[in-house]
């Protein structure tokens, strides 16, 4: 599907979604409440079949977080970027690890380094840091008095 066709399809699936302008891939923003049902549609809709989640990451915008999903279809070769805005104080979103198994590790990474909690994840533990580590290193306000090197 081309970006335009994809956009029309998305407007049908998710009324009121905000689209970003000037991006190479169709990029849309949504809210965590609507995300899980939307993601299930992306995975299973016969016209979409987004079966490949090639990147999952989180961004700290100081006032809020966004989780960014890069979806692609190995059948139709179209790509979609979904950004979900999360609350600063309680960043939580439903897991998609049962839809895309790769999300299991990627979500653990986002939890470990950015402190996003993924509701329903089968194994929500830290991945790189030790279990007793305090704080989330990729956050902008993270301070480590011992190991941090300032440039």
């Amino acid at each position, binding site marked *: 599907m081309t970006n335009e066709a994809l956009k029309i399809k998305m407007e049908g699936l998710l009324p009121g979604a905000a689209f970003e302008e*000037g*991006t*190479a*891939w169709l*990029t849309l923003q949504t809210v965590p409440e609507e995300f899980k049902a939307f993601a299930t549609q992306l995975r299973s809709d016969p016209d979409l079949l987004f*079966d*490949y*989640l*090639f*990147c999952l*990451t989180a*961004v*700290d915008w100081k006032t809020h977080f966004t989780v*960014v999903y*890069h979806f692609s279809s*190995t059948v139709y*070769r179209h790509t979609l*970027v979904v950004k979900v805005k999360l609350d600063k104080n309680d960043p939580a979103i439903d897991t998609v690890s049962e839809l*895309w*198994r*790769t999300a*299991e*590790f*990627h979500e653990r*990474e986002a939890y470990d*380094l950015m402190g996003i909690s993924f509701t329903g994840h089968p194994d929500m533990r830290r*991945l*790189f*840091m*030790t279990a007793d580590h305090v704080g989330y*290193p*990729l956050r902008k306000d993270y301070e480590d008095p011992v190991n941090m090197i*300032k*440039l």
Partner: protein
Amino acid sequence: MLEEIGTNDQGDMIINIGPQHPSTHGVLHLVITLNGETVKKVEPHLGYIHRSIEKMCESLNYRQFIYVTSRMDYLSSHINNHACALCVEQGLQLEIPSRAQVIRVLLDELTRIASHQLWWGALAMDLGAFTPFFYAFREREMINEIMEETCGARLTMNYIVPGGLMMDVHPDFQRKVKAFLVQFRSKIHEYDELVTGNVIFQSRTKGVGILSKEDAISYGCTGPTGRGSGVSCDIRKLYPYEIYQQLQFDEVLEQGGDSFARYKVRIGEMIQSMNIIEQLIDNIPEGDFQAKTKAVLKLPKGDFYSRVETARGELGVYIISEGGTTPYRIKFRSPGFSNLSALDHMSRGGKIGDLMATMGTLDLVIPDIDR
């Protein structure tokens, strides 16, 4: 190597492999739940070489951050640099000279061959054959010498930079690459004679660590791991960058999904890489090796994503820029990370001895996983 042996409440044995185990090729720690010799669960514990490269990059400017990325997948350092350079060039909307493009592709493919050679030797060593390692290093040394002359480094190259190349290639580059091609073409049959056709090797890898096509896509497995399961995922073919669409080469696909299929993909890829190099080595255009760029690079506000095919699979570089000289946030989607996540699924129900073959054919590079 076995740090701690215990049993859980079902009477299964818990075994630790690593982080200092010779066959993990780095500091990977696996906690394995065993019922007799049968693997019930493999749980990777990561972070022993986590340097938080993504955080570091947030305080490095667009000329500096290339240098840390050589230290992710150190066997594909040229290709890592290439991905970063492409991402920055995409943001700057920079056209780079064709000489630089050709040399970049040549170096990428040389890197891919060198990486697969090391993997080939190390895999055979994991499975108990020591000789192949020396065969692989005989040819790999020639590539390393080419790199040393041209880039001044054998491992962390830092040669491909935004705008083109750090400097021009060494005057001896063409001659040495051709000598390498002659040598490798005449010796690659030894790889098959020594390992591929070996009965012991085949019985240790055929039917071991099976990954179906659907699972490979779901786990995000790319590179030879994905292609061994029949997933067409070669970024050079699907989303061509630089001059790949003008080149004649095949995407090597195997349908088996087992360790032997992944093995055959990599052997096939070495031959394809040689074909690419042969097409280009006599056709390096004259001209500049670098585009004109400003001393300080500033990316406009926005998101930039570049994808390349490293020796292990799809590397994604995702830069979120706020218009400054450093990235606001950068994410490296590393191939090894996703490939490792399938290890538990692939080795369940198999024997612990087979785990080494599965792990070996995933071609894990731990700094790439931990970043």
